[in-house]
């Protein structure tokens, strides 16, 4: 059994009386792909944002490798080994692809405070190695601002891997991509996660991607976890069928 990387217990969040997330508990192990799914408004984003430090839960525990990370800022959580990709890609548009990855590497090494050395002189090899892994090495010199959307997603993945994360949080990683690209990107993610023993938690709308790539799936509906298990188990779960197909029987 792989060690547990992320442990979430009894997570609660309400917005002005509306319970967005109620008593959510789950865990992700090293090398595991866990998909968090649910209909629109189920609380997936709220849940996600409590894990990455953008929202503070009303109550509950979030442990990263045993360490409580509730109340930490996003950048502190990153320092503890959490990489992130965003639903709408966030990269540095005026920098080159390689520089984007180097930025994360410099930050990881705590070397951004230098005023006089030349940026880019260090970590070129490491950046290229990461870009090679996501298949973006041939575009390393291009400016991020001109890349195709699918390529930006790959760059984000390379950036997210730069701090040798223990956990990857991917919010709608394939949103806005062509169906074929989606499976390819998540296959790549799964391969990297297993090779590097990284725990991956992702939300996703594309059920093909979810059922083909996730090791386990948890289902959120109206803020509550209604099911969890392997893809076949979840597929067979009547609660899930009710939520997604709209009928109780």
């Amino acid at each position: 059994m792989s060690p547990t990387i992320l442990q979430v217990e009894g997570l609660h969040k309400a917005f002005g009386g509306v319970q967005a997330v109620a008593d959510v508990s789950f865990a992700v192990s090293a090398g595991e792909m866990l998909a968090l799914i649910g209909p629109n408004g189920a609380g997936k984003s709220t849940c996600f944002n409590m894990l990455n430090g953008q929202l503070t839960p009303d109550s509950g525990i979030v442990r990263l490798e045993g360490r409580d990370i509730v109340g930490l800022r996003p950048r502190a959580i990153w320092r503890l080994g959490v990489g992130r990709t965003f639903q709408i890609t966030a990269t540095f548009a005026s920098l080159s692809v390689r520089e984007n990855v180097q930025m994360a590497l410099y930050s990881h090494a705590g070397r951004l405070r230098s005023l006089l050395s030349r940026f880019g002189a260090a970590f070129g090899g490491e950046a290229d190695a990461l870009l090679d892994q996501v298949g973006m090495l041939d575009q390393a010199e291009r400016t991020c601002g001109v890349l195709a959307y699918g390529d930006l997603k790959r760059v984000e993945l390379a950036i997210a891997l730069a701090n040798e994360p223990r956990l990857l949080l991917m919010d709608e990683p394939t949103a806005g991509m062509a169906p074929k690209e989606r499976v390819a990107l998540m296959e790549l993610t799964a391969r990297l996660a297993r090779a590097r023993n990284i725990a991956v938690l992702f939300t996703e709308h594309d059920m093909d991607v979810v059922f083909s790539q996730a090791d386990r799936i948890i289902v959120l509906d109206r803020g509550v976890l209604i099911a969890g298990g392997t893809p076949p188990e979840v597929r067979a779960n009547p609660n899930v069928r009710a939520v997604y197909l709209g009928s109780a029987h």
Partner: protein
Amino acid sequence: MTLASILIQLLNGLAAAASLFLVSAGLSLIFGVTRIVNFAHGSLYMLGLYGAYSLIEFFGRTPLGFWGAVVLAALAVGLVGVLIEVLVLRRIYRAPELFQLLATFAVVLVIKDIALFTWGAEDLVGPRAPGLSMAVEIMGRRIPAYDLLLIAIGPVVLALLWLLLTRTRWGALVRAATQDREMVGALGVDQAKLFTSVFFVGSVLAGLGGALQIPREPANLELDLAIIADAFVVTVVGGLGSIGGAFLAAIIIGVAKAFCIGIGTVTWFGFEISFSKLTLVVEFLIMALVLVVRPYGLLGKPQAAQRAAEPAPRLQVPSWTFALVWLALLALVPLVADRYTTILLTDIVCFALFSVSLHFIMGPAGMVSFGHAAYFGIGAYAAGLLMKRFGLPMEAALLLAPLVAGLFAIVYGWFCVRLSGVYLAMLTLAFAQISWSIVFQWDSMTGGSNGVFGVWPSAWLADKTTYYYLALVLCGAGIVFLWRVLFSPFGYALRAGRDSPLRAEAIGIDLRGFQWAAFVLVGALAGLAGAVYAFSKGSISPSSISIAQSTDGLIMVLLGGVETLTGPVVGAAIFTWLRDVVARNTEFWRAVMGGVILLIVLLFPQGLVGGLKALVARWREQRA
């Protein structure tokens, strides 16, 4: 203070708040729909005062003449606003935000000189409102009846605006456009008409605010920038785009100022504190407090995420050869040029560093400063005062001055990095205005409006050519240093933060910390420019810290082009030289400068250097 005097100050404050509210509401309305920070809004207010003055003289000092003049002046100012929108702004709605700003600066310059040409440089004292010149007795104190009327006008205009915005189709469009301009465009609304009409209404409000002040305040040429600073504070405190917020903030600030003036000079623990001189400081404290507690103003909402702008182009490193050739050329100039040219070149060198430091913060670091002159001026004053008042040798004063400017940047920057976009820009302007008012009012230390005299360099530097070389070395080193920093990990982190704050935070970058450090760095270097400039002139005046100086810096940067490194230097050179040439030939140099800037904005929306580069590229393409 007695109850009666408190009441009096309260009424004074409310009366003053009326015009402040009108101007700010107009500014807010225009910004909400067009996303243009209209610097010329203060000029429209000024025109309102002048217009009302002339029309009253024309109609005669009767109640009908007076009120007819006020209303007509406001409507005429509205038409001026329409003219500005149609002739200038409409052509550049697609240009980068900063270029629109540059255009409104140019309009400020042009209007100022039109006013100078039409009404002369003397203050014009208007009549009291006929029929309302008596005073009303309240609790044993006499209050001008006109003030009571002003107090009533504020809420009336607020109510009318509210009705206009909530009960008419036009109002619905304005509100919709304030929320999502592109969506309104996509729904087939004629944006041009909507923008023009919003400009008209906003300008009428500014003009009315000015015209109503005629019995209280003489019309003068300094009003444009003075009121725009106040209006910025009010909109920031109230929340951009919120009319109700503007009303609330205008009252808070108007009343607070009135109380300061009312309190007058107080002695606390043996210290004499003149509250009447602290009005701007109090205004600032209110704003600082509000921004810390509610960064989007009292009734404002967080700004809607702007749709992805064009990514900034990659910067190119200027080569050493390039830098050395230019340095060599500049070093050779005094050998062939006359004394006059050498002095002008010294000015250019100082302003080049000033402009490059401003470019650093607004371009790569992505924080637009409307008040960069604060650091230039503080550097200049620090240099002069350290020498004159504290008896330091000139050399020591020159080297310490940037540190003093840096210290101020530490304080100002702490607040500024908490904000972004327009709010940030307005806050920087407010800080500059505070610094200016302290300099202007602290007679015993700074020499007040006269400034500091006899700030001459030591004997070995007294020769103009020698001093030019000193300026070239110091400012040149400053420029090279800043350029170098841009390509360091620190500079890249700033650029990364500008591109995507979200991603920067997600990869562990303490963006605010970096931005704060950048603020201090450029503050110190602008201070160096100011100190070098002070000793080259031999005197320092409050104009070195004025809004006009800040806008000069912005013009230099934008003129040269914000997207290239050399642009700000070229911009500083052209602007300084042009101003010198024009100022020697005409009294109306501002209008000429404004005209030139408008021409450039309309012809080269990427700045001179950017525009020339594009031209060269096109020429090469055609040849290939």
